[in-house]
């Protein structure tokens, strides 16, 4: 141990000065003079001392560093060698860690890409959607804004730098390559400006084009569409294309990578366009609500401030226009929340599940290391006897666990990156918005490093703590005493069982919810229906021509091989674009209006779609001359004609004294918009059906009853329609069950992932339990031998071990159930038709876990009974 360099240097130099003075004294000088002369000859004592001290200190520092590096290198070498000598043990530990770290990293990859990374717009955290909503009893229901409403907002709101209306559209593109259906947006003034995009080629829209005259014929293309259809020709401004049969001129191209606020737009039309524009009448109507509005918060304005301002704006509008704006709200929602919706919570819940899995994995590793440490007790004792300091021992154990953790983390990182890719690929498109790209960035690597360090230190501390206990020696001799298990080991196992139980309860709840969703009757034959949409352009088809053309197409399709009955109507379930309005019961007042969705259908609709008629009859050929009949949905009947037979009653459309229609039948509820909303309770509005023929529309959806393979059906459809009219594109061809699957996508994803993780967790926990008990039995061998020697039967011994094990399991189950009760709150948003404290789920899960644990406990218990007392005691 070196002394303080300052003292040593001082002593050394003092020695010199004294000896030098003595030399001078011997030559005849007086002591004081000699000393002065010695100091003078020496030079600047202070400066030289300081310099010498500096040299010395630097040397000590370098030496210390070298020693530490040497120790570290030695520990690393020892650790690696030790682990290579036990490849099985190392493999299990590394594999367990890789599993845990990999799972967390994979899900974090998705979390990072969807929640943490920036959205593809400049200053995206200042962007919001202002959503028009209707204040329903169960909470606000978003419905879209009307044009006058959006204008009022933009004009009065001061919290926003700008607001612009936007609406998603789908158009048929012809005149530039093959006829395609293109997704786009129609936008109002200020849209591109507030998103801070500039045209890559040409320009965006002028004020005149954006005003709602219905005359504008300009279009802006996306970069991708420009490349695809025009080969990135820079002279594209001025070229014309046909959208839905209407000729429009390209005025500009958007920058690369920009896909609008819908994240998938390939072209943009101004709100005043001639193709899909609302037209003057619709644009002036406050009752026609269909717009989204995107806004950028003004500098320095917070979300809450904007929210409260818009609440005020909405209520002032309600005062000014009491009919049109009754119960209307203006909600301000950050962009990301609108895109992700409840997927955000879902992904975070899954992340939480993987964190639990990692904890279980770490606990297993800690137990494994502890077992190994006790196995090396002799080595530890010897090292301590040889004087290895406690710190060195801890350092050695930590080095070992860090080496394992590093290997596990490296493998886990690889698994995690690949896993994130896989996750994003299997996550239904419905769940992840288009901007999510799970390429790993720095944060993923950082996470892996942090996890590795945390797990390595935590897991490594357990054997280190063991090594530091003073009574290691006596502990060895007594064979562990009592239970053979340290309290720490027991606690770890209890923890693992509890965490695994929490995961399993979560998985169980999600699974039951998913099951309930699948059990919802959609109201139509979802397995065997294929649908597509058509839009008949006015130049090619006049009024009667529309009906004739569609009937011809219907006939040809029915004649095609492999296709069954065909029908068509204004829309099919689970697609967008439904029309809603108000109706009134006979004699009802204006306040008693009922919001409803109307569907125009052909007479054979109900039969082909497989929708049951509960009462009365369906619409039929006979009604073709009579437009004033309707079939209503069951929920409408139950809500507004409770206890009576609505058949024969009449309803008024749009106004209390409006057109009268007669109810001729009641159809089962069809899930047009989503599976889980409560149709009877009023969270969603009911549907009625009228004959399409009484007001034919150019846009229809065609439904085909067929059991054939969808891609084959699509090909046939395209052939038939193409033969009829090559310029008529087939839009959104897809089997209906696809849309249904998208509805249950979230539940399916959530329950599948949770099930997978909980199985893994259960497996790890049970393996940990087995390992720990085997270890305990081993340690208690002598005690067991003694018992058997004095006459205890195998059964008693078995019982003893089983009880010891099951006591741990019981503690784990109790703890787990309690935690699950609290944790299940996070799942509430996703549970359909299942209580978060559903007793059946909890009981079943606990019972399963207990059963599996019993098996894991039984095996070491059996082994205990095979202890040969003679051999065991004799060998001591």
């Amino acid at each position, binding site marked *: 141990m070196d002394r303080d360099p300052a003292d*040593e*240097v001082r*002593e*050394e*130099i003092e*020695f*010199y000065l004294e*000896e*030098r003075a003595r*030399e001078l004294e011997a030559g005849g000088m007086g002591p004081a003079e000699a000393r002065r002369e010695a100091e003078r*000859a*020496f*030079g*600047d*004592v202070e400066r*030289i*001392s300081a*310099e*010498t001290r500096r*040299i*010395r200190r*630097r*040397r000590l520092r*370098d030496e210390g560093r070298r020693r530490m590096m040497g120790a570290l290198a030695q520990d690393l070498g020892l650790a690696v060698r030790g682990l290579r000598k036990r490849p099985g043990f190392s493999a299990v530990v590394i594999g367990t860690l890789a599993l845990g770290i990999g799972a967390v990293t994979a899900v974090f990859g998705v979390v990072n890409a969807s929640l943490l990374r920036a959205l593809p717009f400049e200053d995206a955290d200042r962007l919001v959607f202002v959503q028009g909503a209707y204040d329903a009893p169960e909470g606000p229901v978003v419905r879209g804004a009307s044009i006058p409403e959006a204008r009022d907002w933009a004009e009065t709101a001061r919290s926003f730098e700008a607001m612009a209306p936007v609406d998603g559209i789908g158009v048929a593109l012809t005149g530039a390559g093959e006829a395609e259906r293109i997704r786009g947006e129609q936008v109002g003034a200020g849209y591109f400006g507030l998103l801070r995009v500039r045209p890559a080629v040409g320009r965006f829209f002028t004020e005149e084009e954006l005003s709602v005259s219905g005359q504008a014929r300009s279009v802006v293309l996306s970069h991708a569409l420009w490349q695809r259809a025009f080969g990135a020709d820079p002279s594209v401004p001025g070229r014309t294309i046909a959208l839905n049969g209407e000729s429009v001129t390209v005025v500009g191209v958007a920058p690369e990578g920009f896909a609008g606020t819908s994240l998938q737009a390939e072209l943009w039309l101004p709100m005043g366009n001639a193709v899909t524009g609302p037209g003057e009448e619709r644009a002036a109507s406050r009752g026609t609500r269909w717009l989204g509005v995107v806004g950028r918060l003004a500098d320095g304005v917070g979300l809450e401030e904007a929210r409260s301002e818009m609440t005020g704006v909405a209520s002032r509008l309600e005062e000014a226009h009491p009919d049109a704006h009754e119960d209307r709200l203006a909600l301000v929602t950050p962009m990301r929340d609108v895109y992700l919706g409840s997927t955000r919570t879902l992904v975070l819940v899954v992340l939480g599940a993987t964190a639990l899995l990692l904890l279980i994995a770490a606990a297993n590793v800690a137990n494994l290391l502890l077992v190994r440490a006790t196995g090396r007790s002799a080595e530890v004792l010897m090292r301590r006897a040889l004087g290895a300091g406690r710190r060195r021992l801890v350092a050695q154990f930590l080095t070992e666990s860090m080496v394992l953790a590093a290997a596990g983390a490296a493998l886990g990182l690889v698994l995690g990156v690949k896993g994130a890719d896989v996750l994003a690929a299997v996550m239904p498109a419905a769940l992840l918005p288009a901007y999510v790209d799970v390429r790993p960035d720095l944060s993923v690597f950082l996470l892996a490093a942090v996890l590795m360090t945390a797990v390595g230190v935590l897991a490594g501390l357990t054997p280190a703590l063991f090594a530091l206990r003073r009574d290691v020696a006596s502990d060895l001799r007594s064979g562990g005493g009592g239970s053979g298990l340290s309290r720490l080991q027991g606690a770890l196992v209890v923890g693992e069982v509890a965490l695994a139980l929490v995961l399993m309860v979560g998985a169980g709840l999600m699974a039951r919810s998913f099951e309930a969703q699948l059990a919802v009757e959609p109201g139509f034959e979802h397995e065997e229906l294929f649908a597509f949409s058509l839009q008949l352009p006015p130049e090619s088809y006049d009024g009667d021509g529309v009906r004739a053309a569609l009937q011809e197409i219907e006939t040809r399709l029915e004649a095609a091989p492999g296709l069954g009955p065909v029908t068509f109507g204004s829309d099919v379930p689970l697609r967008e674009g439904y029309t809603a309005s108000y109706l009134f019961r006979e004699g009802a007042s204006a306040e008693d209006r009922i919001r409803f969705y109307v569907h125009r259908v052909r007479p054979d609709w109900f039969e082909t779609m497989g929708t049951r008629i509960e009462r009365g009859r369906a619409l039929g050929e006979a009604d073709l001359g009579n437009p004033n009949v309707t079939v209503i949905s069951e929920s409408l009947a139950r809500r507004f004609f409770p206890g009576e037979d609505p058949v024969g009653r009449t309803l008024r459309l749009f106004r209390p004294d409006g057109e009268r229609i007669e109810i001729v039948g009641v159809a089962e509820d069809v899930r047009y918009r989503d599976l889980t909303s409560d149709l009877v309770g009023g969270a969603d509005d009911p549907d009625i059906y009228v004959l399409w023929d009484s007001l034919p529309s150019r846009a229809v959806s065609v439904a085909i009853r067929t059991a054939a393979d969808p891609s084959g059906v699509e090909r046939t459809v395209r052939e038939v329609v193409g033969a009829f009219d090559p310029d008529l594109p087939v839009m959104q061809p897809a089997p209906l069950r696809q849309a249904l699957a998208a509805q249950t996508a979230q539940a399916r994803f959530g329950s599948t992932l949770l099930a997978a993780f909980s199985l893994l967790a259960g497996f790890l926990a049970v393996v940990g339990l087995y390992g720990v008990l085997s270890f305990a039995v081993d340690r208690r061998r002598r005690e067991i031998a003694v018992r058997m020697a004095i006459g205890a039967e195998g059964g008693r011994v078995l019982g003893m071990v089983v009880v010891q094990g099951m006591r741990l399991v019981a503690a784990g189950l109790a703890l787990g159930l309690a935690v699950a009760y609290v944790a299940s709150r996070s799942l509430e948003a996703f549970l359909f038709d299942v209580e978060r404290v559903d007793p059946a789920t909890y009981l079943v899960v606990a019972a399963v876990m207990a059963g599996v644990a019993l098996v894991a406990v039984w095996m070491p218990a059996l082994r205990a009974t095979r202890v040969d007392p003679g051999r065991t005691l004799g060998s001591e």
Partner: protein
Amino acid sequence: MSGSDLFTGTLDLLILRILQDEPRHGYAVGKVLRETSQGVLDVEEGALYPALHRLESQGLATAEWGRTDTNRRARFYRLTEAGRERLAGEEERWSDFSDAVRAVLGGTGS
């Protein structure tokens, strides 16, 4: 020669030479230097100490506390193997150098 300063290089070398025969403490080294090296330490006797510690830092010498024959505590310096090798190398170079100088000066002086 190690060290950018010719003086410190010379001093280091001389100290190594002095330590070659037997371990000595700092005062003893200084005394020999004063008696034999004709003025190397005239400016500052204390320059000895940074030099000694430097040699120790570079691993050319080791030091440990001991007792003088008058039973006083002193720090004794001793050459290491590396130190011996360095000395041998430097001595060879010195002899080449002085041969060269002698050749240039045409043998005047000894």
